[in-house]
Protein backbone atom coordinates (compact mmCIF):
# COMPACT_ATOMS: atom_id res chain seq x y z
CA UNK A 1 0.00 0.00 0.00
CA UNK A 2 2.80 2.44 0.97
CA UNK A 3 6.18 2.01 -0.63
CA UNK A 4 9.19 4.08 0.25
CA UNK A 5 12.32 3.87 -1.79
CA UNK A 6 15.65 5.45 -0.92
CA UNK A 7 14.19 8.33 1.05
CA UNK A 8 16.55 11.14 2.03
CA UNK A 9 15.57 14.12 4.14
CA UNK A 10 17.68 17.08 5.18
CA UNK A 11 17.13 19.86 7.68
CA UNK A 12 19.30 22.64 6.40
CA UNK A 13 22.68 20.99 6.15
CA UNK A 14 21.85 18.12 8.51
CA UNK A 15 20.84 14.84 7.04
CA UNK A 16 18.13 13.27 9.19
CA UNK A 17 17.04 10.36 7.01
CA UNK A 18 19.59 8.69 4.79
CA UNK A 19 18.15 6.54 2.10
CA UNK A 20 15.60 4.33 3.77
CA UNK A 21 13.20 2.00 2.03
CA UNK A 22 10.20 0.38 3.60
CA UNK A 23 6.86 -1.16 2.75
CA UNK A 24 3.54 -1.05 4.49
CA UNK A 25 1.19 -3.75 3.21
CA UNK A 26 -2.53 -3.19 3.24
CA UNK A 27 -4.38 -3.83 6.54
CA UNK A 28 -1.14 -4.49 8.40
CA UNK A 29 0.44 -2.93 11.44
CA UNK A 30 3.99 -1.82 10.77
CA UNK A 31 6.13 -0.37 13.49
CA UNK A 32 9.19 1.78 13.36
CA UNK A 33 11.46 1.76 16.38
CA UNK A 34 14.74 3.42 17.14
CA UNK A 35 16.57 5.69 19.49
CA UNK A 36 15.80 9.36 19.94
CA UNK A 37 16.74 11.42 16.95
CA UNK A 38 17.02 8.38 14.70
CA UNK A 39 14.74 9.98 12.14
CA UNK A 40 11.46 8.24 12.84
CA UNK A 41 9.31 11.32 13.09
CA UNK A 42 11.08 12.82 10.12
CA UNK A 43 10.14 9.82 8.03
CA UNK A 44 6.47 10.16 8.88
CA UNK A 45 6.51 13.88 8.35
CA UNK A 46 8.00 13.50 4.93
CA UNK A 47 5.34 10.92 3.99
CA UNK A 48 2.60 13.50 4.63
CA UNK A 49 4.62 16.26 2.99
CA UNK A 50 5.30 18.34 6.07
CA UNK A 51 8.97 18.13 5.18
CA UNK A 52 10.14 17.65 1.65
CA UNK A 53 12.25 14.69 0.67
CA UNK A 54 15.50 15.69 -0.94
CA UNK A 55 15.78 12.38 -2.74
CA UNK A 56 13.82 9.17 -3.13
CA UNK A 57 10.27 8.21 -3.85
CA UNK A 58 7.15 7.71 -1.79
CA UNK A 59 4.42 5.70 -3.36
CA UNK A 60 0.90 5.33 -2.03
CA UNK A 61 -1.56 2.98 -3.68
CA UNK A 62 0.54 3.03 -6.78
CA UNK A 63 0.68 6.79 -6.96
CA UNK A 64 3.79 8.89 -6.50
CA UNK A 65 3.05 11.31 -3.67
CA UNK A 66 6.60 12.49 -3.04
CA UNK A 67 6.09 16.05 -4.15
CA UNK A 68 2.46 16.53 -3.27
CA UNK A 69 1.11 19.14 -0.88
CA UNK A 70 0.10 17.94 2.56
CA UNK A 71 -3.55 18.71 1.93
CA UNK A 72 -3.51 16.62 -1.20
CA UNK A 73 -1.80 13.70 0.47
CA UNK A 74 -4.36 13.81 3.24
CA UNK A 75 -7.07 13.63 0.60
CA UNK A 76 -5.56 10.42 -0.70
CA UNK A 77 -6.29 8.77 2.65
CA UNK A 78 -3.22 9.13 4.83
CA UNK A 79 -3.32 10.82 8.20
CA UNK A 80 -0.80 11.40 10.88
CA UNK A 81 -1.33 11.51 14.62
CA UNK A 82 1.49 13.90 15.31
CA UNK A 83 4.10 13.67 18.02
CA UNK A 84 2.83 15.38 21.16
CA UNK A 85 -0.92 15.09 20.38
CA UNK A 86 -1.28 18.64 19.02
CA UNK A 87 -5.02 18.92 19.57
CA UNK A 88 -6.54 22.33 18.89
CA UNK A 89 -6.93 23.48 22.44
CA UNK A 90 -9.14 26.45 21.53
CA UNK A 91 -11.68 24.17 19.89
CA UNK A 92 -14.12 21.91 21.67
CA UNK A 93 -13.77 18.15 21.50
CA UNK A 94 -16.58 17.96 18.97
CA UNK A 95 -15.04 20.69 16.84
CA UNK A 96 -11.70 18.94 16.92
CA UNK A 97 -13.40 15.88 15.54
CA UNK A 98 -15.24 17.89 12.93
CA UNK A 99 -12.06 19.52 11.79
CA UNK A 100 -10.59 16.06 11.42
CA UNK A 101 -13.27 15.54 8.80
CA UNK A 102 -12.53 18.87 7.15
CA UNK A 103 -12.24 17.33 3.70
CA UNK A 104 -15.17 14.98 4.19
CA UNK A 105 -18.41 15.89 2.52
CA UNK A 106 -20.70 13.33 4.05
CA UNK A 107 -20.94 10.68 6.66
CA UNK A 108 -19.48 13.01 9.25
CA UNK A 109 -22.14 12.26 11.81
CA UNK A 110 -21.69 8.50 11.53
CA UNK A 111 -18.00 8.98 11.89
CA UNK A 112 -18.42 10.99 15.01
CA UNK A 113 -20.61 8.26 16.39
CA UNK A 114 -18.01 5.67 15.49
CA UNK A 115 -15.28 7.63 17.28
CA UNK A 116 -17.49 8.21 20.29
CA UNK A 117 -18.22 4.50 20.47
CA UNK A 118 -14.53 3.81 20.38
CA UNK A 119 -13.80 6.44 23.03
CA UNK A 120 -16.88 6.87 25.20
CA UNK A 121 -14.90 9.30 27.31
CA UNK A 122 -14.87 11.78 24.44
CA UNK A 123 -18.63 11.65 24.13
CA UNK A 124 -18.90 12.70 27.78
CA UNK A 125 -16.55 15.62 27.16
CA UNK A 126 -17.92 16.62 23.79
CA UNK A 127 -18.28 20.33 24.71
CA UNK A 128 -15.09 20.71 26.69
CA UNK A 129 -12.24 22.72 25.24
CA UNK A 130 -9.54 20.30 24.19
CA UNK A 131 -6.90 22.36 25.97
CA UNK A 132 -8.32 21.42 29.33
CA UNK A 133 -8.39 17.68 28.75
CA UNK A 134 -5.93 15.45 30.53
CA UNK A 135 -3.00 14.04 28.60
CA UNK A 136 -4.65 10.70 28.04
CA UNK A 137 -7.87 12.23 26.90
CA UNK A 138 -6.01 14.45 24.50
CA UNK A 139 -4.31 11.42 23.05
CA UNK A 140 -7.66 9.74 22.51
CA UNK A 141 -8.87 12.88 20.83
CA UNK A 142 -5.82 13.01 18.57
CA UNK A 143 -6.44 9.44 17.45
CA UNK A 144 -10.16 10.04 17.11
CA UNK A 145 -9.55 13.15 15.07
CA UNK A 146 -7.31 11.22 12.71
CA UNK A 147 -10.00 8.57 12.26
CA UNK A 148 -12.55 11.19 11.26
CA UNK A 149 -11.13 11.46 7.76
CA UNK A 150 -11.68 7.71 7.26
CA UNK A 151 -8.06 7.19 6.41
CA UNK A 152 -6.78 4.15 4.63
CA UNK A 153 -3.46 4.55 6.37
CA UNK A 154 -3.11 6.03 9.81
CA UNK A 155 0.34 6.86 11.08
CA UNK A 156 0.95 7.42 14.78
CA UNK A 157 3.98 9.09 16.23
CA UNK A 158 4.62 7.89 19.78
CA UNK A 159 1.00 7.77 20.87
CA UNK A 160 1.94 6.49 24.33
CA UNK A 161 4.32 9.32 25.17
CA UNK A 162 3.83 10.56 28.70
CA UNK A 163 0.77 8.46 29.34
CA UNK A 164 -0.03 6.48 32.42
CA UNK A 165 0.46 2.70 32.08
CA UNK A 166 -3.26 2.04 32.18
CA UNK A 167 -3.86 4.42 29.31
CA UNK A 168 -0.92 3.05 27.37
CA UNK A 169 -2.57 -0.33 27.45
CA UNK A 170 -5.78 1.26 26.32
CA UNK A 171 -4.09 2.92 23.39
CA UNK A 172 -2.61 -0.33 22.20
CA UNK A 173 -6.00 -2.02 22.46
CA UNK A 174 -7.46 0.70 20.34
CA UNK A 175 -4.73 0.40 17.72
CA UNK A 176 -5.53 -3.28 17.43
CA UNK A 177 -9.22 -2.50 17.24
CA UNK A 178 -8.83 0.07 14.48
CA UNK A 179 -6.67 -2.29 12.56
CA UNK A 180 -9.23 -5.01 12.91
CA UNK A 181 -11.78 -2.67 11.36
CA UNK A 182 -9.58 -2.48 8.31
CA UNK A 183 -7.27 0.47 8.70
CA UNK A 184 -3.61 0.08 7.93
CA UNK A 185 -1.29 1.36 10.64
CA UNK A 186 2.25 2.70 10.68
CA UNK A 187 3.33 3.11 14.27
CA UNK A 188 6.31 4.75 15.92
CA UNK A 189 6.92 3.67 19.48
CA UNK A 190 9.51 3.98 22.17
CA UNK A 191 7.74 1.19 23.93
CA UNK A 192 9.29 -1.27 21.52
CA UNK A 193 8.14 -4.25 23.49
CA UNK A 194 4.48 -3.50 23.17
CA UNK A 195 4.79 -2.23 19.63
CA UNK A 196 6.55 -5.26 18.27
CA UNK A 197 4.02 -7.49 19.96
CA UNK A 198 1.17 -6.19 17.89
CA UNK A 199 3.14 -5.46 14.73
CA UNK A 200 3.12 -7.57 11.60
CA UNK A 201 6.34 -5.97 10.47
CA UNK A 202 9.03 -4.00 12.31
CA UNK A 203 11.83 -1.75 11.17
CA UNK A 204 14.66 -0.48 13.31
CA UNK A 205 16.02 2.92 12.46
CA UNK A 206 19.47 4.03 13.57
CA UNK A 207 20.77 7.51 12.75
CA UNK A 208 18.75 7.77 9.61
CA UNK A 209 19.20 4.29 8.20
CA UNK A 210 17.29 1.05 8.61
CA UNK A 211 19.49 -1.50 10.27
CA UNK A 212 17.15 -4.36 11.07
CA UNK A 213 13.81 -5.37 9.65
CA UNK A 214 11.53 -8.32 9.99
CA UNK A 215 8.21 -9.58 11.36
CA UNK A 216 7.41 -8.16 14.79
CA UNK A 217 7.57 -11.43 16.67
CA UNK A 218 10.99 -12.19 15.22
CA UNK A 219 12.43 -8.85 16.14
CA UNK A 220 11.17 -9.33 19.66
CA UNK A 221 13.52 -12.28 19.91
CA UNK A 222 16.44 -10.55 18.22
CA UNK A 223 19.33 -10.20 20.65
CA UNK A 224 20.52 -6.90 19.20
CA UNK A 225 17.12 -5.41 19.75
CA UNK A 226 16.84 -6.86 23.19
CA UNK A 227 20.11 -5.21 24.12
CA UNK A 228 19.53 -1.85 22.54
CA UNK A 229 15.83 -1.19 22.90
CA UNK A 230 14.03 -3.55 25.17
CA UNK A 231 16.20 -3.21 28.23
CA UNK A 232 17.52 -6.45 29.62
CA UNK A 233 16.83 -5.77 33.23
CA UNK A 234 13.63 -7.69 33.55
CA UNK A 235 12.74 -8.07 37.12
Amino acid at each position, binding site marked *: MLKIRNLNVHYGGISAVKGISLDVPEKSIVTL*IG*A*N*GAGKSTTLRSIVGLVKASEGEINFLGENITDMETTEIVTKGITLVPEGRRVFDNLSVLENLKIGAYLQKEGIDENIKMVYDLFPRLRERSWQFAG*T*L*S*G*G*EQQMLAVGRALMSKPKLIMMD*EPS*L*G*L*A*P*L*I*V*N*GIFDIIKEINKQGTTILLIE*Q*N*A*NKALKIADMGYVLETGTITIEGPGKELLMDQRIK*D*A*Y*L*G*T*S*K*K
Partner: protein
Amino acid sequence: MSVLKIDNVKMQFGGVIAVNNLNIDVEKGKIVALIGPNGAGKTTAFNVITGVYNPTSGSVFLNDKKITSLSPDKITKLGIARTFQNIRLFKNLTVMDNILIANHLNVKSNFLSSALRMPWYIKEENHMRKKSEMLLDKLGLLGIKDEIASSLPYGEQRKLEIARALATDAKLLLLDEPAAGMNPHETMELTEFIRNIRDEFDLTVFMIEHHMNLVMEISDKIYVLDFGQLIAEGTADDIKNNPRVIEAYLGVEEDA
Protein backbone atom coordinates in the same frame (compact mmCIF):
# COMPACT_ATOMS: atom_id res chain seq x y z
CA MET B 1 14.73 14.07 58.75
CA SER B 2 12.36 15.45 56.16
CA VAL B 3 13.80 17.83 53.63
CA LEU B 4 10.53 18.67 51.99
CA LYS B 5 7.20 18.71 53.69
CA ILE B 6 3.97 19.40 51.86
CA ASP B 7 1.33 20.23 54.37
CA ASN B 8 -2.30 20.01 53.36
CA VAL B 9 -1.82 21.76 50.06
CA LYS B 10 -4.77 22.55 47.85
CA MET B 11 -4.52 24.07 44.40
CA GLN B 12 -7.60 25.21 42.60
CA PHE B 13 -7.91 26.69 39.08
CA GLY B 14 -11.32 28.18 38.70
CA GLY B 15 -13.56 25.19 39.16
CA VAL B 16 -10.80 22.59 38.84
CA ILE B 17 -9.23 21.36 42.00
CA ALA B 18 -5.93 20.07 40.66
CA VAL B 19 -4.43 19.18 44.01
CA ASN B 20 -6.46 18.50 47.11
CA ASN B 21 -5.24 18.28 50.71
CA LEU B 22 -1.93 16.87 49.73
CA ASN B 23 0.50 15.76 52.42
CA ILE B 24 3.93 14.54 51.44
CA ASP B 25 7.21 14.08 53.31
CA VAL B 26 10.43 13.65 51.44
CA GLU B 27 13.26 12.35 53.53
CA LYS B 28 16.81 13.45 53.12
CA GLY B 29 18.95 11.37 50.79
CA LYS B 30 16.03 9.33 49.50
CA ILE B 31 14.64 8.94 46.02
CA VAL B 32 10.91 9.49 46.16
CA ALA B 33 8.49 9.10 43.28
CA LEU B 34 5.14 10.71 42.58
CA ILE B 35 2.94 8.76 40.21
CA GLY B 36 -0.64 8.84 39.12
CA PRO B 37 -2.89 9.03 36.06
CA ASN B 38 -2.63 11.86 33.56
CA GLY B 39 -4.09 15.00 34.95
CA ALA B 40 -3.88 13.77 38.52
CA GLY B 41 -2.09 16.92 39.61
CA LYS B 42 1.53 15.77 39.79
CA THR B 43 3.06 18.56 37.75
CA THR B 44 0.83 20.98 39.58
CA ALA B 45 2.25 19.75 42.87
CA PHE B 46 5.75 20.40 41.53
CA ASN B 47 4.69 23.86 40.42
CA VAL B 48 3.42 24.63 43.87
CA ILE B 49 6.63 23.42 45.47
CA THR B 50 8.80 25.50 43.14
CA GLY B 51 6.69 28.62 43.51
CA VAL B 52 5.28 28.72 39.97
CA TYR B 53 1.83 28.61 41.55
CA ASN B 54 0.67 29.92 44.88
CA PRO B 55 -1.37 27.22 46.56
CA THR B 56 -4.97 28.03 47.33
CA SER B 57 -4.31 26.79 50.83
CA GLY B 58 -1.75 24.82 52.77
CA SER B 59 2.01 25.23 53.07
CA VAL B 60 5.28 23.84 51.82
CA PHE B 61 8.35 23.56 54.04
CA LEU B 62 11.95 23.13 53.03
CA ASN B 63 14.10 21.99 55.92
CA ASP B 64 11.33 23.22 58.22
CA LYS B 65 11.41 26.66 56.69
CA LYS B 66 8.15 27.75 55.14
CA ILE B 67 8.61 28.51 51.45
CA THR B 68 5.00 28.86 50.35
CA SER B 69 4.37 31.88 48.14
CA LEU B 70 8.03 32.67 47.65
CA SER B 71 8.94 33.34 44.03
CA PRO B 72 10.54 30.52 42.02
CA ASP B 73 13.95 32.14 41.94
CA LYS B 74 14.01 32.52 45.73
CA ILE B 75 13.02 28.90 46.18
CA THR B 76 15.80 27.80 43.87
CA LYS B 77 18.22 29.88 45.89
CA LEU B 78 17.02 28.07 48.99
CA GLY B 79 18.01 24.79 47.43
CA ILE B 80 15.31 23.24 45.25
CA ALA B 81 16.02 22.80 41.56
CA ARG B 82 13.90 21.15 38.94
CA THR B 83 13.57 19.86 35.42
CA PHE B 84 10.51 20.15 33.26
CA GLN B 85 8.07 17.71 31.75
CA ASN B 86 8.85 19.17 28.32
CA ILE B 87 12.55 19.93 28.14
CA ARG B 88 13.19 23.60 28.73
CA LEU B 89 16.82 24.21 27.99
CA PHE B 90 18.21 27.52 26.80
CA LYS B 91 18.15 26.08 23.34
CA ASN B 92 20.32 28.48 21.38
CA LEU B 93 23.05 28.70 23.97
CA THR B 94 25.97 26.38 24.50
CA VAL B 95 26.05 23.61 27.06
CA MET B 96 28.58 25.60 29.08
CA ASP B 97 26.40 28.71 29.01
CA ASN B 98 23.43 26.69 30.19
CA ILE B 99 25.44 25.59 33.18
CA LEU B 100 26.93 29.03 33.83
CA ILE B 101 23.46 30.56 33.85
CA ALA B 102 22.48 28.22 36.64
CA ASN B 103 25.47 29.57 38.55
CA HIS B 104 24.29 33.14 38.20
CA LEU B 105 22.19 32.98 41.33
CA ASN B 106 25.37 32.85 43.39
CA VAL B 107 26.96 35.90 41.74
CA LYS B 108 27.57 38.61 44.31
CA SER B 109 28.85 41.38 42.03
CA ASN B 110 26.26 43.79 40.74
CA PHE B 111 25.74 44.46 37.06
CA LEU B 112 27.96 47.52 37.03
CA SER B 113 30.98 45.84 38.49
CA SER B 114 30.49 42.85 36.24
CA ALA B 115 30.21 45.01 33.11
CA LEU B 116 33.23 47.00 34.23
CA ARG B 117 35.11 43.77 34.91
CA MET B 118 36.06 44.62 38.44
CA PRO B 119 38.68 42.27 39.90
CA TRP B 120 36.20 40.69 42.29
CA TYR B 121 33.88 39.92 39.43
CA ILE B 122 36.66 38.37 37.37
CA LYS B 123 37.44 36.17 40.32
CA GLU B 124 33.83 35.09 40.60
CA GLU B 125 33.61 34.39 36.88
CA ASN B 126 36.75 32.25 36.93
CA HIS B 127 35.51 30.33 39.88
CA MET B 128 32.17 29.80 38.19
CA ARG B 129 33.78 28.43 35.06
CA LYS B 130 36.03 26.05 36.96
CA LYS B 131 33.14 24.75 39.00
CA SER B 132 30.98 24.26 35.91
CA GLU B 133 33.69 22.38 34.10
CA MET B 134 34.10 20.10 37.06
CA LEU B 135 30.39 19.41 37.11
CA LEU B 136 30.27 18.70 33.39
CA ASP B 137 33.26 16.43 33.78
CA LYS B 138 31.61 14.44 36.52
CA LEU B 139 28.50 13.96 34.42
CA GLY B 140 30.46 13.11 31.32
CA LEU B 141 29.31 16.15 29.41
CA LEU B 142 32.59 18.02 29.29
CA GLY B 143 33.33 16.90 25.76
CA ILE B 144 30.27 18.68 24.41
CA LYS B 145 30.56 21.88 26.43
CA ASP B 146 30.67 24.11 23.38
CA GLU B 147 27.79 22.48 21.54
CA ILE B 148 24.54 24.38 21.14
CA ALA B 149 21.99 22.78 23.45
CA SER B 150 19.33 22.23 20.81
CA SER B 151 21.74 20.26 18.65
CA LEU B 152 22.19 17.57 21.28
CA PRO B 153 20.48 14.21 21.08
CA TYR B 154 17.40 13.94 23.22
CA GLY B 155 19.00 11.84 25.93
CA GLU B 156 21.89 14.26 26.35
CA GLN B 157 19.42 17.13 26.56
CA ARG B 158 17.67 15.37 29.43
CA LYS B 159 21.03 14.89 31.13
CA LEU B 160 21.99 18.49 30.54
CA GLU B 161 18.75 19.65 32.07
CA ILE B 162 19.56 17.66 35.17
CA ALA B 163 23.12 18.99 35.17
CA ARG B 164 21.82 22.51 34.91
CA ALA B 165 19.60 21.94 37.91
CA LEU B 166 22.56 20.59 39.85
CA ALA B 167 24.63 23.64 38.97
CA THR B 168 22.39 25.76 41.15
CA ASP B 169 23.90 23.86 44.11
CA ALA B 170 20.46 22.68 45.07
CA LYS B 171 20.24 19.71 47.37
CA LEU B 172 16.72 18.73 46.49
CA LEU B 173 16.15 17.78 42.88
CA LEU B 174 12.68 17.63 41.35
CA LEU B 175 12.49 15.65 38.12
CA ASP B 176 9.31 15.79 36.02
CA GLU B 177 9.13 12.70 33.83
CA PRO B 178 12.84 12.45 33.10
CA ALA B 179 12.37 9.29 31.07
CA ALA B 180 9.52 10.52 28.85
CA GLY B 181 10.28 9.66 25.26
CA MET B 182 13.07 7.25 26.13
CA ASN B 183 13.06 3.66 25.15
CA PRO B 184 13.43 0.96 27.80
CA HIS B 185 17.14 0.75 27.26
CA GLU B 186 17.74 4.46 27.62
CA THR B 187 15.45 4.45 30.62
CA MET B 188 17.65 1.92 32.26
CA GLU B 189 20.71 4.04 31.71
CA LEU B 190 18.89 6.97 33.22
CA THR B 191 18.11 4.91 36.30
CA GLU B 192 21.80 4.40 36.88
CA PHE B 193 22.51 8.04 36.22
CA ILE B 194 20.02 9.26 38.79
CA ARG B 195 21.33 6.88 41.39
CA ASN B 196 24.88 7.98 40.75
CA ILE B 197 24.25 11.66 41.04
CA ARG B 198 22.24 11.14 44.18
CA ASP B 199 25.26 9.53 45.76
CA GLU B 200 27.85 11.79 44.22
CA PHE B 201 26.17 15.07 45.06
CA ASP B 202 24.50 14.02 48.23
CA LEU B 203 21.06 14.77 46.89
CA THR B 204 17.48 14.12 47.66
CA VAL B 205 15.45 13.29 44.57
CA PHE B 206 11.73 13.72 44.12
CA MET B 207 10.42 12.66 40.73
CA ILE B 208 7.36 12.19 38.61
CA GLU B 209 7.46 9.29 36.20
CA HIS B 210 5.22 7.03 34.18
CA HIS B 211 7.86 4.39 33.38
CA MET B 212 7.09 1.84 36.03
CA ASN B 213 10.31 -0.09 35.52
CA LEU B 214 12.26 2.97 36.52
CA VAL B 215 9.99 3.93 39.37
CA MET B 216 9.80 0.52 40.96
CA GLU B 217 13.48 -0.04 40.58
CA ILE B 218 14.77 3.17 42.03
CA SER B 219 12.28 4.60 44.51
CA ASP B 220 12.67 4.41 48.24
CA LYS B 221 9.14 5.62 48.57
CA ILE B 222 6.24 6.17 46.19
CA TYR B 223 3.25 8.46 46.45
CA VAL B 224 0.23 7.89 44.22
CA LEU B 225 -2.03 10.74 43.26
CA ASP B 226 -5.44 10.50 41.66
CA PHE B 227 -7.76 13.43 41.03
CA GLY B 228 -5.50 15.59 43.15
CA GLN B 229 -5.78 13.28 46.10
CA LEU B 230 -3.28 10.90 47.59
CA ILE B 231 -4.61 7.37 47.15
CA ALA B 232 -1.57 5.44 48.32
CA GLU B 233 1.95 5.74 49.62
CA GLY B 234 4.62 3.22 50.39
CA THR B 235 7.40 1.12 48.95
CA ALA B 236 7.42 -0.25 45.44
CA ASP B 237 5.95 -3.54 46.56
CA ASP B 238 3.16 -1.92 48.54
CA ILE B 239 2.18 0.15 45.57
CA LYS B 240 2.42 -2.59 42.96
CA ASN B 241 -0.13 -4.63 44.80
CA ASN B 242 -2.42 -1.88 45.95
CA PRO B 243 -5.76 -2.55 44.24
CA ARG B 244 -6.73 1.09 44.17
CA VAL B 245 -3.51 1.96 42.38
CA ILE B 246 -3.95 -0.89 39.96
CA GLU B 247 -7.45 0.19 39.19
CA ALA B 248 -6.69 3.86 38.77
CA TYR B 249 -3.27 3.76 37.28
CA LEU B 250 -1.30 0.61 36.66
CA GLY B 251 -3.90 -1.57 35.06
CA VAL B 252 -3.17 -5.24 34.72
CA GLU B 253 0.12 -5.95 33.01
CA GLU B 254 -0.80 -8.29 30.22
CA ASP B 255 2.26 -10.35 30.90
CA ALA B 256 6.03 -10.12 31.02
